[in-house]
């Protein structure tokens, strides 16, 4: 059965060195660290060394549109763009009614823009997820009759993504909405993970996503199933043909026949798609063939079966025989058998073949097999080229092209604004939380309780400042804080400098330092001292002070206030904080 997230996480410590290396980038608009773990861990299960670049939180735009971004430097073979329905919903709610009615089109235009921008710079395959459904219950069932409703726009977006993938050869869909339909929302979403870790997927879903994305990668890389081998008694029909006779087996409307009829219908569709069907059964051949030739309710007939093997030899020998006739690898074969004992023998003798562990109750066969996604494929050549072109023309209508030649243009276009405030009763809980939880962009990693922060805010020898950030896409809230300690009349020490990793690479550091320098200058300080205390997790700020122009001084970093020149930043202040201090 499906592996647990914890199992996949433990794989991370194992030896990948003999595996094929594949470079993949994950760009996500929610917290993706565990998804990263699950994906790499799942790779171990299928013999792939997935070399993953995980972009910082919510940086899809930046990574795609900035030609100098880490994404392009990494040059992955695959880019998985993971977007959440939770973010989609918030975006939708920001629009007025006409905007909401055109929302899916806008999402799709943007997605197309991602794909075009990436395609112009990389040969990578792009994997997009469909959005799992959220019914926000704003319109009730009337959402169906309301084009501006979220439910309608969500479904339209999902359909549009599939259409986009049909047009663009390098775009593939990881059908998360389809997974949601199979496993249910309770498995997809865990409110606890969402509230506490900003993760829109439950731990139990992560292995399923990892498998799904890996299935796509494997199929593109040429590893996919070509052949389905069926056992007969209690797999292709109910009962035992040798004992029950042709009239006694369950198929069609007889007994539990529905189960086997539906399984056969599925196999027939697979055959139509190009999967080779074979039979491997312990039976006398004439008796085993009889239903295929004469039973009125059988879906599969002899001409559907490429190789029909029914005898009293072992199944292992018979499967080897089938392989030799078809001249395909064992790893492209699936063997269905209701008997756990036979399955185990085949699995042991032929490790490369896929042998699903069918549920004990045949009634569960169909849903179980569907969930396994055994027959992933990267191509199917019956496309309606004419229709494809129509869709392409439709997508080009009113396209607001959004592509940036450099980072500065991109940052400038964001229209970033920051509210700079001394700690107050509203910000204290969040400030304390940031000091407790931030590990990466945290220069000294000093943890403060709410009580501590309250004391700091009323202590004249400290200045605590919180900073927010908003841009034209939304409000990130309180994302940075500094605590300045007045060491003496001329020296200001940066006790704490923390920034949420959500807003990395926005130039927020420059803006923050300008703020510090303004404060220092306005209050007669001539020196600002910074310190970096290394931890296992804060390596990203190792060169923080050096890159901001501080000079080394006795293991610390020093900035001369008089010589400070304001650093370039695309963030503008929403308020004037220090005017009151200086007056």
């Amino acid at each position, binding site marked *: 059965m499906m592996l647990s997230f914890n199992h996949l996480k*433990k794989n991370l*410590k194992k030896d990948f060195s003999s595996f094929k290396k594949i470079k993949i980038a994950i760009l996500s608009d929610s917290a993706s*660290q*565990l998804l990263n773990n699950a994906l790499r861990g799942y790779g171990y299960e299928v013999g792939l060394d997935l070399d993953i670049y995980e972009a910082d939180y919510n940086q899809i735009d930046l990574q795609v549109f900035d030609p100098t971004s880490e994404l392009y430097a990494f040059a992955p073979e695959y880019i998985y763009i993971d977007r959440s329905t939770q973010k989609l919903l918030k975006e939708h709610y920001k629009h007025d009614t006409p905007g909401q009615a055109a929302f899916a089109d806008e999402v799709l235009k943007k997605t197309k823009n991602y794909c075009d921008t990436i395609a112009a710079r990389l040969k990578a395959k792009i994997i997009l997820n469909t959005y799992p459904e959220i019914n926000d219950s704003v319109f009730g069932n009337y959402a169906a009759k309301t084009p501006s409703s979220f439910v309608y726009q969500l479904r339209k977006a999902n359909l549009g993504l599939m259409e986009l993938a049909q047009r663009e050869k390098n775009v593939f869909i990881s059908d998360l909405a389809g997974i949601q339909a199979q496993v249910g929302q309770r498995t997809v979403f865990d409110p*606890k*993970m969402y509230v*506490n*870790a900003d993760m829109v997927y439950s*731990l139990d879903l992560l292995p399923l996503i990892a498998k799904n994305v890996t299935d796509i990668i494997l199929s593109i890389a040429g590893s996919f199933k070509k052949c389905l081998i069926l056992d007969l008694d209690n797999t292709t029909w109910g009962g035992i043909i040798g004992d029950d006779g042709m009239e006694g087996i369950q198929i069609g409307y007889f007994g539990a026949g529905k189960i086997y009829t539906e399984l056969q219908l599925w196999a027939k569709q697979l055959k139509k798609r190009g999967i080779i069907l074979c039979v491997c059964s312990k039976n006398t051949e004439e008796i085993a063939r009889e239903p295929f030739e004469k039973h009125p309710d059988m879906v599969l007939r002899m001409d559907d079966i490429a190789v029909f093997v029914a005898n009293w030899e072992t199944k292992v020998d018979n499967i080897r025989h089938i392989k030799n006739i078809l001249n395909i690898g064992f790893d492209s074969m699936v063997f269905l058998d209701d008997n756990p004992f036979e399955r185990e023998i085949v699995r042991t003798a032929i490790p490369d073949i896929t042998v699903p562990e069918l549920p004990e109750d045949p009634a569960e066969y169909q849903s179980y097999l569907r969930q396994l996604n055994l027959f992933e494929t990267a191509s199917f050549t019956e496309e309606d080229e004419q229709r494809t072109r129509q869709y392409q023309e439709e997508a080009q209508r009113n396209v607001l092209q959004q592509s940036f030649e450099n980072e500065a243009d991109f940052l400038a276009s964001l229209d970033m604004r920051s509210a700079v405030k001394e700690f107050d009763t509203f910000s204290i809980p969040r400030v304390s939380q940031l000091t407790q939880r931030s590990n990466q962009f945290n220069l000294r990693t000093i943890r403060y309780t709410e009580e501590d922060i309250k004391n700091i805010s009323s202590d004249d020898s400290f200045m605590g400042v919180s900073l927010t950030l908003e841009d034209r896409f939304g409000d990130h809230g309180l994302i940075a804080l500094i605590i300045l300690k007045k060491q003496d009349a001329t020296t200001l020490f940066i006790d704490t400098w923390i920034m949420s990793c959500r807003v990395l690479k926005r130039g927020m550091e420059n803006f923050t330092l300008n703020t510090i320098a303004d404060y220092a200058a306005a209050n007669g300080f001539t020196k600002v001292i910074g310190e970096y205390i290394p931890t296992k997790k804060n390596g990203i700020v190792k060169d923080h002070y050096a890159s901001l122009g501080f000079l080394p001084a006795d293991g610390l970093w020093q900035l001369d206030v008089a010589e400070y020149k304001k650093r370039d930043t695309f963030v503008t202040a929403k308020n004037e904080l220090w005017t009151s201090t200086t007056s």
Partner: protein
Amino acid sequence: MDFNNIIKQVNDIFIDVLDNEDIKLTPETTAADVEDWDSLNHIQLVVAIEKHFKMRFTTAEINGWKNVGEMCVAIENRLKG
């Protein structure tokens, strides 16, 4: 189930989730005492504990425990129903 039994089972969950055989929890153990017990792992621990004991905690509880003892008392209380 008594408190000692609970903390023993919680200890096993910690060993499994954090993949560290050396973990020995006491009621006074805090996140600072255990390597890798950060906020992201905390939520994974909570999910594993919920699954193991077949219970669900509130967000307030999850963020409120000051040490392992408080966490185990919460489990104990829920088991008592």
